[in-house]
């Protein structure tokens, strides 16, 4: 009976992980801007999460727990690479066929490019807050820093992005002023 219960629990947990995979991938991508690496990081996260499932005491903290594993994997990768930023050429987004799609991709590209220019510590915090939607307390838990540091990093990240992005809509020049994606 216990074995059956464990089997159900494992299956449920696996499903919980699978449900979160897409968002984990997007967050990983927001950090590294590389599809293959983001996929590898998420794959590694899933494997570790399954192995360490017993250490998850509170199901309510599943999200922060998973993202902490993802962040650790990312940091491990950076350590191995021995560098902190500008890891690769981000030339994997292709070119859409139509002019309108191209304009649209330019806007997204501009934002991603601005995020990519942020120092890594700011990039991680701002994407966890503004894309993944975590609270300050959750980010503090994931990144393992005090809440005050989350606040200051988020402030600096947004100030930086604000300066980079404010001309997006300025004077109707958006389509021509956008910079290309790396």
């Amino acid at each position: 009976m216990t074995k059956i219960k464990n089997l159900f629990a494992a299956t449920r947990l696996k499903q919980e992980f699978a449900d979160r995979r897409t968002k984990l991938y997007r967050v990983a991508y927001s950090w590294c801007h590389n599809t293959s690496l983001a996929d590898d990081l998420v794959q590694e996260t899933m494997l570790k999460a399954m192995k360490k499932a017993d250490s998850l005491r509170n199901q309510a903290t599943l999200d922060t727990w998973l993202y902490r594993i993802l962040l650790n994997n990312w940091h491990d990768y950076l350590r191995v690479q021995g560098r902190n930023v500008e890891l690769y050429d981000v030339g994997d987004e292709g070119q859409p066929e139509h002019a309108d799609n191209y304009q649209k991709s330019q806007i997204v590209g501009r934002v991603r490019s601005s995020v990519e220019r942020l120092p890594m510590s700011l990039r991680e915090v701002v994407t966890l807050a503004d894309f993944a939607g975590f609270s300050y307390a959750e980010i503090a838990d994931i990144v393992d820093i005090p809440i005050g540091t989350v606040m200051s990093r988020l402030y600096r990240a947004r100030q930086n992005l604000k300066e980079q992005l404010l001309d997006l809509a300025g004077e109707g020049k958006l389509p021509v002023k956008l910079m290309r994606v790396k």
Partner: protein
Amino acid sequence: MNDKTYTDEKLNLFIDQQLDTDENDEIRHSILEDASIRERVCQLKAVRELVGYAYENVPDPDNASGAGNAGISRYLWKGIAASLLLAIGMLTGWTVNDAARSTQIASADDVFQYYKSAAQVNRAERKIILHVTTGDIYAVKGALDEAEQLLASYRDAGTPMKLDIVTYREGINMMRVGVSPYLDRIEGIVDNNDNVSLYACMRSIDKAQKKEGKQLVMMEKAVTDKTAQELISERLQKGWIYIKV
């Protein structure tokens, strides 16, 4: 409240809803009174929204050669639309509220049409849609405050403007006779400003009539023969600024 009272750190906490109720209310009140605070809050919100949407859809790891963009969802573009409209609103001094993230009205195509036309818009003239989607009495009051502020600001600046108040879903209640406590105020706004028009979504009225089993009586000045979606799409394509309440 002086603009310098609040640091950007504080306003960040405000937009992320990390302040206690009193501080939150204080800033919310200041936003209504002080255009410079409103603009700073809008800037921060715009950044947050743009980052949020930039990663809603990223290239597929299995098909990184272009499927990511080709497959970008309409939902994403609606999101970008809202964000960019927010940025436009910000730069032109208008407040766009939290609901921008969830707008279901502005399509991607609308927005990019907007951008095309924005470059050709006569900068001396402002055309604004105030889209009211809620029947919440405080939100409606806020919408009317916002409308009056917009009208006063542009009047003081000598800048011509056109304001269309478009109500949708429960928002139509603000124009209902016997329901809205603000009919006199709305009448006053329209009577004193020949550049203000009122619209109640035809589809929302139909739905409400079916639900309530009776004919809705709308104020006479409200135009009721078009859907909100039609009205807003038409205006966005002509370069109007969109503000959602």
